């Protein structure tokens, strides 16, 4: 009798949950947290935009440690959430394992490729966006030296640096390019003090524009650039407002668009690899009132011209991750 009651109860709960969860999508953020002013926040903005347009709620989760990844994916899949959108390359391994177990659930992963029939993988051509801000840096530099501060030394970050160096050299072939990585452990994403010191060290070597692709460490880069009276370039989201008048521009990675599209497609999510580049507005550079005084119309015209050439395929920016080499810089 008690067993029967339990079973019935469980069945009823499942049915209720399935009903409530029907067609409810979910967005799962990575460890930076959804208000990181950067990558995750862009994803959050995309989801909020979809929510405002459709009036439909979505479930969300912010993970706090790696052990939660598998747990939360399973839980959402069991609840019947569809589709499940996750942001960050760190989800790759876990999703590769979970996706085949829930063939009826659609998953979308941003920043990583997972090869499964029910997974949509969205990756970005960061090297193209970095190329544009590299051009911008070279155009704005008076010393003929530009700097790059990466977070953790991983191929993805070198891809940013390599695209940036190529862009800078396209404007000025003799430009001096300085690159530093903050570290080799995940702590390198959250060390603003070291980011600031790296910026000061690069300034001492002559750099007057520094591009930070370093998560929370980048806050230190932007701050030090302002303190030292040089220019900085933000990353992922539009970070121009963080130090107005000192951030030259930001390399935009339209994670918000990717999340928005994935939610819009809903249960009919098209599996496969989706590359977001300049051609489909997946990457770009940011212009707003905070950097209007720093960027002349000529600079903008030069950069836009290059962007058009990349879109048409006339100019091809080398992707570091394609062969782990960079023609324009050494890491």
């Amino acid at each position, binding site marked *: 009798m008690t067993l029967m009651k339990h079973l019935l109860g469980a069945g009823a709960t499942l049915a209720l949950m399935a009903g409530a969860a029907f067609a409810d999508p979910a967005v799962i953020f990575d460890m*930076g*947290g*959804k*208000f*990181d*002013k950067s990558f995750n*926040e862009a994803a959050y903005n995309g989801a909020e935009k979809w929510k405002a347009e459709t009036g439909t709620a979505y479930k969300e989760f912010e993970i706090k440690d790696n052990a939660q990844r598998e747990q939360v994916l399973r839980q959402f899949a069991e609840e019947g959430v569809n589709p499940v959108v996750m942001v960050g390359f760190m989800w790759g391994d876990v999703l590769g394992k979970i996706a085949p177990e829930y063939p009826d659930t659609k998953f979308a992963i941003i920043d990583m490729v997972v090869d499964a029939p029910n997974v949509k993988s969205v990756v970005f051509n960061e090297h193209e966006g970095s190329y544009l801000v590299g051009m911008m840096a070279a155009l704005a530099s008076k010393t003929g030296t530009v700097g790059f501060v990466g977070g953790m030394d991983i191929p993805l970050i070198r891809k940013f640096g390599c695209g940036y160096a190529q862009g800078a050299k396209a404007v000025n072939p003799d430009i001096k390019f*300085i690159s*530093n*990585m903050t*570290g*080799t452990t995940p*702590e390198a994403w*959250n*060390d*603003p*003090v*070291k980011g*600031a*010191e*790296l910026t*000061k*060290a690069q300034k*001492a*070597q002559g750099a007057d524009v520094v591009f930070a692709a370093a998560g*929370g460490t980048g*806050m*230190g880069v932007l*701050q030090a650039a302002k303190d030292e009276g040089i220019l900085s370039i933000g990353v992922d989201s539009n970070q121009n407002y*963080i*130090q107005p008048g000192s951030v030259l521009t930001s390399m935009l990675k339209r994670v918000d668009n990717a999340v928005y599209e994935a939610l819009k497609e809903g249960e009919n999510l098209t599996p496969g690899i989706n590359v977001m580049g300049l051609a489909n507005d997946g990457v770009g550079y940011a212009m707003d009132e905070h950097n209007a005084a720093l960027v002349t119309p000529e600079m903008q015209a030069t950069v836009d011209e290059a962007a058009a050439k990349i879109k048409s395929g006339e100019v091809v920016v080398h992707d570091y991750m394609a062969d782990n080499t960079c023609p324009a810089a050494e890491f």
Partner: protein
Amino acid sequence: MDYATLLQVLDSSIRLATPLLLACLAGLYSERAGVFDIGLEGKMLIAAMTSASVAAIYGSVWLGLVAGVLASMAFALIHGVASITFRGNQLISGVALNFVAAGITVLIAQHLFGQGGRTPSLEGAARFLPIDLPLAGAFASVPVVGTLYAEVISGHSLLVYAAALLVPLTAFVLYRTRYGLRLRAVGENPASVDTAGVSVRNLRYSAVLITGVLCGLAGVYLACALQAGFGRDMTAGRGYIALAALIFAKWRPWHALWACLLFGFFQALALRPDVVETVTFMKVPVPFLDALPYMLTVIVLAGLVGKAIPPRAGGEPYVKER
């Protein structure tokens, strides 16, 4: 490498060494009194968050300083209660406090400002600004010594000079005062102190609270002087490097200063791989430079450069004989 580059590296070394030095001296008091403290990191973090939050809200770095130091002292007191009064395991209490600090700082900052666990950027009076020492401008034109004074010694924030003054002060307190003698004794042989009629408990509590004050200063320096605000996990392991420096210095104040300056110098060198390459004529991997402080500590621990003997009663709660 030209002289100007050397000065730049030394300047950077001093900035990077200061939080290590403050945390290292903090650990010195606690460990000399026989209470191991692995929670330097957590105390720095809570002080960094509290000071940046208070400074951001009230626009005064001095209020921030007081609040940051008090927050760090509160954490130190918890460590004291756990390890002195309740005779708990000191390492576990320290580790636990580190975890609490990592979580609660982000939680509070997010609740206060809603910027993802970050505090707003501090400006003007909400931040310790670099101060020029007297005559720095006049000396700047004097070659070698003058530029060294103007570029490296001058132009840091107040807390850097405070940290430097704390070294002779600590040495004096430790070796020349009655309190220092008792403090060292309580870390070596608490029973003898007890026999002499001095309270082991009070001595250890006082040491732990001093640790709290100094860790607080280290955290405030990170958030309100080096940086202009708090960011999650911004201490980035400096509390542990300070512990390594403490072992390297064999629990002595002046040696702590040299150890921290050396570690700071290594950190500054790691920022300039180009300089290292021109000096050594080979490409030295940056991670190697990052790992140097730890490697040196292991060498010292292995007994290759004299012996590193920790305070004898360290880590053991004192149980009064009945």
